[in-house]
């Protein structure tokens, strides 16, 4: 399959990138896909999305069409909840979609509702994204005035600062006005979700692809498979870069899109999925940007949030900072995450301050083993990634802290 060249690629999701004002309904071109979808049967819409192989863009990469097909054909209300709680460190793609082209998301949400029989969509947006929320509400009003919503409703629901609300079932709990702690499964949300009703939860970027699939067809989509890559950290030009999956490597993302590493320094490591996936060392830079290749390289593409660390970065400090995130964002429901992330962070902080020992490194790996695979949700599983990957691949940096009694690098401001 020949993908469009990385340098001549015309963004689809980020068509209005760089604009200070969002695209109006007219500029967006009206909801052609929504009207077209309503001429199809719901089953046909699901089939089209299934055939497109669209994978969830929130991090789990679960095939979207398949998720929709899990909803049982029962009477009574069903709900779509759009996961706009983007909170993974290094992730800002959904923000840009919502700020520049809210209509694309709304149209995708409507098509999704139609496909599995929901009449109400909640857009659960993180509380800090005020601009995006306002633009979504204005766009919904615009669409409603244009008579596009009909019997459907799209409601913006703002969060209040909790990363765990990005976890599907914790999001549902938050929407129900309860402490947002993930639920045990079974039952799964498709069967028993919001208010106990069948519910689909999809990421912003996932749904934003849907109008394009309906307009241009599944085969077209398979040939393009657009993905937004977030690039941040020690690069000259951080930002969102939309390219076809697999069309470029990590190195190309850094050099061509990010205009290289600040100060021309060598890359020490790259985190491909924010804080949640193992760090990749410099020898993996020629890995193509797609789910399978990144997995093959020993990590995970997840939300495609690339954080670049140059030689100037202290890995121990980076690990401690990421574990701090998980420690404080843990909801506290399950024992290993609640108690384990605290413990990990306390040990890492000592190591960062130069007050650790080699026994601490064994302890960190042992604790990671006690947490990973034993927790209720993915937050706990991912919380050990910064620890395990860095202790195994950058042991010498840890040893330097231990033996020198301080951080050898000092500041890492670039």
């Amino acid at each position, binding site marked *: 399959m020949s993908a469009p060249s990385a340098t001549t690629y015309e963004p689809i999701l980020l068509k209005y990138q760089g604009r200070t004002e969002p695209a109006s309904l007219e500029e967006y071109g009206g909801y052609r896909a929504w009207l077209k979808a309503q001429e199809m049967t719901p089953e046909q819409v699901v089939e089209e999305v299934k055939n497109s192989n669209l994978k969830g863009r929130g991090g789990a990469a679960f095939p979207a069409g398949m998720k929709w097909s899990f909803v049982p054909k029962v009477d009574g209300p069903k709900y779509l909840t759009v996961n706009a709680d983007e909170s993974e460190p290094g992730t800002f793609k959904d923000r840009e979609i919502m700020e520049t082209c809210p209509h694309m998301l709304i149209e995708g949400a409507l098509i999704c509702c139609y496909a599995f029989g929901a009449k109400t969509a909640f857009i659960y947006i993180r509380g800090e994204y005020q601009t995006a929320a306002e633009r979504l509400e204005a766009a919904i009003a615009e669409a409603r005035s244009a008579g596009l919503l009909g019997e459907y409703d799209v409601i913006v629901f703002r969060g209040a600062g909790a990363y765990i609300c990005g976890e599907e079932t914790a999001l549902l709990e938050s929407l129900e006005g309860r402490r947002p702690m993930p639920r045990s499964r079974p039952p799964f949300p498709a069967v028993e979700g919001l208010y106990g009703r069948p519910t689909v939860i999809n990421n912003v970027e996932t749904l934003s692809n849907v109008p394009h699939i309906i307009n241009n067809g599944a085969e077209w989509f398979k040939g393009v498979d657009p993905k937004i890559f977030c690039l941040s950290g020690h690069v000259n030009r951080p930002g969102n870069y939309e390219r076809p999956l697999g069309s470029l490597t990590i190195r190309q993302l850094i050099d061509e899109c990010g205009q290289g590493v600040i100060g021309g320094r060598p890359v020490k490591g790259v985190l491909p999925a924010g804080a949640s996936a193992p760090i990749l060392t410099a020898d993996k830079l020629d890995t193509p940007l797609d789910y399978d290749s990144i997995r093959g390289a020993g990590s995970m593409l997840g939300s495609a949030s690339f954080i670049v660390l140059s030689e100037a970065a202290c890995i121990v400090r980076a690990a401690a900072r990421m574990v701090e995130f998980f420690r404080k964002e843990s909801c506290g429901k*399950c024992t290993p995450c*609640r108690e*384990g992330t605290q413990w990990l962070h*306390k040990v890492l902080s000592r190591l960062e301050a130069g007050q650790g020992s080699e026994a601490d490194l064994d302890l960190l790996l042992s604790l990671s083993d006690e947490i990973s695979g*034993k927790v209720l949700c993915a937050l706990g599983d991912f919380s050990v990634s910064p620890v395990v990957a860095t202790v195994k691949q950058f042991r010498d940096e840890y040893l330097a802290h231990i033996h020198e009694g301080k951080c050898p690098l000092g500041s890492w401001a670039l």
Partner: protein
Amino acid sequence: MPDPEVTVHIDGREVQVPRGTLVIEAAKLAGVEIPVFCYHPKLKPVGACRMCLVDIEKMPRLQTACTTPVAEGMIVHSRNDRARDAQKSVIELLLANHPLDCPICDKGGECPLQDNTFKYGLGTSRFYEPKRKLAKALPLSDRIVLDRERCIMCYRCVRFQDEVAGDQALSAIDRAGTSQIGVLEGETFDSPFSGNTIDLCPVGALLSRQYRFRARPWDLQRTPSVCVGCAVGCNVELHARDQVLQRMVPRENMEVNNEWLCDYGRFDTLPIHQDRVRQPLIDGAVAPWQEALRTAAKMLRGGSAEVVASPSLTNEALNALRAISAGLHAPLTVWPAKTGRVRGSIVDLIGSKTIILLGFDVWRELPVLALRIREALKKGAQLYWVGAGENGLRRDTTASYATADALLKALDGAPAGPVSILGPGADDLAQRLEAGGMVGEPPTAANGYAMAELPRANFTADVLLLAGNESWPSRTVNRPAVMLRWADPQLPASSHSQLVLLPILHPYEQTGTVTNLEGRVQELRSGGHLAGEARADWAVLAELGRALGINPAPEGIQPALA
């Protein structure tokens, strides 16, 4: 049609269970113990503590037994290396920040955390970091004290208040490693069922202030009995140390109280810190039994008499009073008139599809019955309130009406059955509907059922026999009286004109039977012993009968069960 059964293997034992059974339940049936903290059979499972992680073949990830339903042919391991490893991990993580202050913790000796640590833990600690510091001995109410450092965030208490009590009186606060249990600042843990969280708490976090530092569980003598706080007759277990009553906990009886108690029964019916009547008193002066009985008999024969029963006396005492009132040709009355009868059982109530409260606040009057009503509501029943006044079950009430007519109109006269009706006018309303559930104006006193046909006392006779530990009304003060009571000897003595006070045992110290609102006769047993000369209510009345020359000894004066 019964659920189809599946066959599962747990630690090599094969068992057949209905489809949908949780692995933890199947394990119990197979005789395999899987350690738990957050799981409780009466609460919805949450999978929070991770203590019950098991290794299920063909599932790559360990699963919590409490949230996983069985599947045909499932093979579960709870004792292989992977499972044992997980159990050790969870214990190690729970103990990391735990204060480990067992020597000063009431829970020691009956503590699932201790027990699971011994059975499933590592035995050493690797945690050298500073432990988190949280509030210890924080009074949540005048009944409950909370130690936040010991709490393992199993949420049983929060879930109980949400699922069983329905008042959501407790919540988790904060998040992550500083998650705690609490209430809004300036408020207390205000629920009539708060004491149940003490039983549910698997560590020494939620503790009884009444019982705090009083005894160790291995010192306690345990006696099954019945609560005398109201007419539900919750089954209890009395705990005494060196014969002195220390606390009362519930016993499970699915036909009466499930496994709950209300706070009034649990804490306030115990004779702890009460000033006890230990010897007979004649006008405030200690007297030997024989002299007291002679004086009492003389008083009662000396004019017109009224025999007044407290509705908390035992059936056996009531029988003795019947004989005495017959022998004296005196009316037998009851006070306070917390009497009544219902037909139909608590099981019928729980099986109802419509429950109507005619101005009868079950939540306040028969608290645990309110919890049983909530069980019916969770199975789809509808609750209606008719009349004015406070309705403690208002959160769960489908609709309220000013009159029964208005209710019937709204329901088109045909509510889904079986129908239960409680409160004054229940029998009349039941005639207009097909009832089938529990119907009647319930008694609220422990033995109110047995005294339902007794008229209310009017205290106008020349001399009164006041049998029972009530706060008798002030107009009894001017009359000569023979009083049987167990608490506050000084109070009546200082106010009555002529008084013989005969000491009886507290219901938790004597044998006897009481009859609950359904007509269920339940047995009291002696859970503790009071030094002194007090005796069972029926025993004292038997002696009084003999002193009055009322012979032969009336039928049934011995308790029904030896």
